[in-house]
Structures are given as structure tokens and as C-alpha cells.
């Protein structure tokens, strides 16, 4: 028996298949994983992401704390409500976790971290927060719903007051704010437009049912995984962890080496790696033969070298198998993947594979 979100009984009532995810009893699918995937690409779906950990950071020196903890620079966040994606690194540049942080006021930021890393993240953040006199509040009183898809924002807005709906629909991408006692953010993990909504745990079941009645499909973690992989988004624990750094994880864009004077944890290690060039890189793969790419399959590079798939699946949108793989930096465009002893052909492609319902890779 794992930990349960406030929506657990509703998931059971809706016929979800429940599986363990990082110690949590979570819905992996309700009816058809592929059907749920298409619902998000074509209309709207709702995911329970209450297992993720919402952490409020409060104090006058919260910005300098985050500028020390994160490889990305919260100095980029200039207007209240803006969000930033980045990594917590250890001194060696290894990735402790990836997270989103929202700038709410000069003395209040909100971070959302992964379920599987919440305990170690809290220890790490508290240790450093103490130095900066910043209070660390784990918001276990909140549930979080991700409403995603081309119709997601319009349908979610129907749950709000007229003024609240206007405010929500005017939110810029990657920003959030308090609306009608909910926290509504235009963020997600699917490659579609949509909202992530944080709300009191006691309200979660009612809101989920209302979304269902507006035609928003209940979607499980299975569809969430195929959607995020199509969208070219990493999964912590699969695609990166403490033994890998951002430059070999497709996350160089989240590392702010400028301004030079910002002494974030892991900076020196990353500077050394960058000056020598990372020997490995994370790439997207499109399988040209029939089959399904899976994590840990071996990738063979013509000429020399080998790599490994970090996440692989069947892409319901492309109707082909896709993956992320960590390979030597010099890897060419054509590789082979060992699937049960057979060598199948795959092509290196630039993620994302799919964005806003459209295929972004050439299938031929």
C-alpha cells in the first residue's frame, strides 16, 4: 500500500488501473492509454499530479537562495507569476532533481518537485534555506490537477467566475497566479497548451467531476508518459539523475552560466565539463524498423561506440516508436538498437517529436 492522493477513491470509482509510482498508488490508465493520449492531443484531458510536491519558499532572501540552488537563474523572473524550469545540482554537477519555480512576490517563490525525490529535495533545500533565513513549507494541503490539450484552457475557465475566467485566459505561457482561491498556471508536461491547477485537497474531487462533465477526459500516468516523451521532455530517474549532468541530458538550455558572478551549486564542475566538451549527449531516436524502443536497450553507433536508451515508447501520434538515448557526442545520424538480439535501424532526430498536436519529425 503506497501513499494516496486526495483523488484516490475517485480514480477507483472511475475504473482506473492503479500502479505504484515512486511509492504512490496512482492511476496508470482508465480505459485506453492510447485513447487518453489522443484526448489530450485533440481535445482535453485531466491528470492527477497531486503526488508531486509543492514547496513554498518564503523570506526576504528567497531570490538569492534560489540563485544558489538552481542552475537556471531566477534573476530572469522579472514579473510576478512568471515560472522557470531548472535543475538542482550537486557540487559535481549531477542532477538532484528538475523542477518548476514560480515567482509570486519578492519574498515568496513556489517550487514544484518530483514525487520520487521529494524527501531528499526537502532535506537539500532546507539545509541551504537555513543559511538564507528562508522558510520552507511543504504544501501537503494542496492537490494538483493538470488540464491539458487544445480545449483545456477554455474548459477550465468555465469553472471560474467571469472575472476569474478572463484573468486565467489572459495568463501568458509559463506563468501562474491565484484566481478564485485556486492557483492556476499555464504550464504542463504534454507539449499541449493547458493549465496546472493547485487547489485545496478537499475541492479536488468536485473539480475533477466538473471537468469530466465538461468533456475533459480522465487520463492516467501512462498517457502522461507518452505525451511527455513525444513533447521532448525529460523524466527524472530515467533520462537524468545524480550520475548525469545537464550537458549530457539535453538540458544545456536550462543552465545559466551568465552572469558569471552567480555562484550556483555545481557551477565549477559544469564549467570544467564545458571547457573540455561533454563526451556524451542525449538525443532523440525514431525507429525506422518495426518494434518498440524501451529504456536500457543498447544503441550501437556505426564506426565506434555504444549508448543506451533512457526512455522509449510507442508514439501514438506518429504511430512509430520513439526514444531518448544517451550516446557518444560524435554519434552520427544513423544508429542501430539491440532489441532482443536483433539489430534494428533508428535515426537520430532533434526533439520534440510532437508539439501542439503536430508531428515535428520527418517520418521518411
Amino acid at each position, binding site marked *: 500500500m503506497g501513499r494516496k492522493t486526495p483523488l484516490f477513491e475517485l480514480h477507483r470509482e472511475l475504473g482506473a488501473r492503479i500502479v505504484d509510482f515512486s511509492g504512490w498508488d496512482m492511476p*496508470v*490508465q482508465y480505459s*485506453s*492509454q*492510447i*485513447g487518453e493520449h489522443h484526448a489530450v492531443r485533440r481535445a482535453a484531458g485531466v491528470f492527477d499530479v497531486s503526488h508531486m510536491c509543492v514547496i513554498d519558499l518564503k523570506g526576504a532572501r528567497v531570490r538569492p537562495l534560489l540563485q544558489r540552488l538552481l542552475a537556471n537563474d531566477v534573476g530572469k523572473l522579472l514579473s510576478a507569476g512568471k515560472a522557470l524550469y531548472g535543475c538542482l545540482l550537486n557540487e559535481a554537477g549531477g542532477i538532484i532533481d528538475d523542477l518548476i519555480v514560480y515567482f509570486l512576490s519578492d519574498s515568496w517563490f513556489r517550487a514544484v518537485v518530483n514525487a520520487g525525490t521529494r524527501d531528499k529535495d526537502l532535506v537539500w533545500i532546507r539545509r541551504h534555506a537555513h543559511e538564507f533565513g528562508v522558510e520552507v513549507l511543504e504544501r501537503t494541503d494542496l492537490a494538483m490537477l493538470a488540464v491539458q490539450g487544445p480545449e483545456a484552457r477554455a474548459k477550465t475557465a468555465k469553472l471560474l467566475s467571469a472575472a476569474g475566467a478572463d484573468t486565467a485566459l489572459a495568463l501568458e505561457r509559463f506563468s501562474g497566479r491565484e484566481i478564485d482561491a485556486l492557483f492556476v498556471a499555464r504550464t504542463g508536461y504534454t507539449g499541449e497548451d493547458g493549465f496546472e491547477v493547485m487547489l485545496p485537497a478537499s475541492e479536488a474531487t468536485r473539480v475533477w467531476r466538473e471537468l469530466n462533465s465538461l468533456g475533459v477526459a480522465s487520463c492516467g500516468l*501512462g498517457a502522461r508518459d*507518452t505525451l511527455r516523451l513525444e513533447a521532448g521532455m525529460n523524466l527524472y530517474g530515467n533520462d537524468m539523475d545524480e550520475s548525469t549532468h545537464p550537458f549530457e541530458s539535453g538540458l544545456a538550455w536550462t543552465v545559466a552560466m551568465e552572469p558569471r558572478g552567480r555562484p550556483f551549486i555545481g557551477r565549477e564542475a559544469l564549467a570544467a565539463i564545458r571547457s573540455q566538451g561533454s563526451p556524451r549527449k542525449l538525443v532523440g531516436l525514431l525507429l525506422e524498423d*518495426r*518494434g*518498440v524502443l*524501451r529504456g536500457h536497450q543498447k544503441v550501437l553507433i556505426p564506426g565506434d561506440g555504444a549508448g543506451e536508451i533512457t526512455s522509449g*515508447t*510507442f508514439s*501514438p501520434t506518429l504511430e512509430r*516508436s520513439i526514444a531518448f538515448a544517451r550516446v557518444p557526442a560524435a554519434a552520427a545520424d544513423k544508429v542501430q538498437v539491440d532489441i*532482443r538480439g536483433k539489430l534494428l535501424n533508428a535515426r537520430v532526430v532533434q526533439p520534440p517529436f510532437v508539439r501542439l498536436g503536430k508531428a515535428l519529425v520527418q517520418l521518411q
Partner: protein
Amino acid sequence: MSKVPADLEYTKTHEWVRALADGTFEIGITNHAQHSLGDLVFVEVPEAGRTVKAGEPCAVVESVKAASDVYAPIAGEVAAGNPRLVSEPETVNADPYGAGWLMRLRPAPGAAAAALLSPADYQKLLHAEGD
């Protein structure tokens, strides 16, 4: 609650076996198995002429989530793999006991089918597994 047709025999690993009039055996996976796997997206069936031992992995069914082996219920030679599944793996979900068959086996001389389960015994197995 899964459907368990009365005219078939079963294995503990959720394959079904149908005796055909020409002396071959048709093999597939049960409704319980296809439901547990979820939407199938890739099926690899053996080529005709391949010899298989009882209990040997001889086909692979993959859903979005995972790959699973299918085991030969009896020893024999593969008479045919279901060609339809190459382009329409979802047929196994839609019709596991009919159009979604995986292969036909010509039993080896004296091949023992003693380990197969009756429909009643397979139903008990499903109850024991909590279905």
C-alpha cells in the same frame, strides 16, 4: 470477470489453445491477458517452419507500456503466424479468441498437452490472481 470460452484449453501463462480440424493447434492470448497488457502496438509472431519446445518463448506482444513473451503451450512446428497482426496488432485486443490468434502449431509426434488447463481450471486461476 474475464471471458473464458468453454471450447478451448489454457495455460498458466494466459495462452489459449484451439484444436483445429486439420490436426493443428491455434494459439493466442486470453482476454484477461490482452486486458492486462492494454493497447497492443506491436506483435512479433514466429515464422512458419520454426520448431518450438513446450514452454519456449515464441512470440512477443508489446503494449504501450511493456513487452511480454508468449510461450508455446505444446511442442511442435509453426504452421503459420497470423499475418494480420503485423499491421493490425490491435486485433488481439478487439478479438483475442478469434481474428487475434497468434500462430498455428503442428504438434510434434507424441507432444504432451497434459499440462493444459480446462476452462474451469483457468477460471479458478483467474480468481486466484484476483480477476
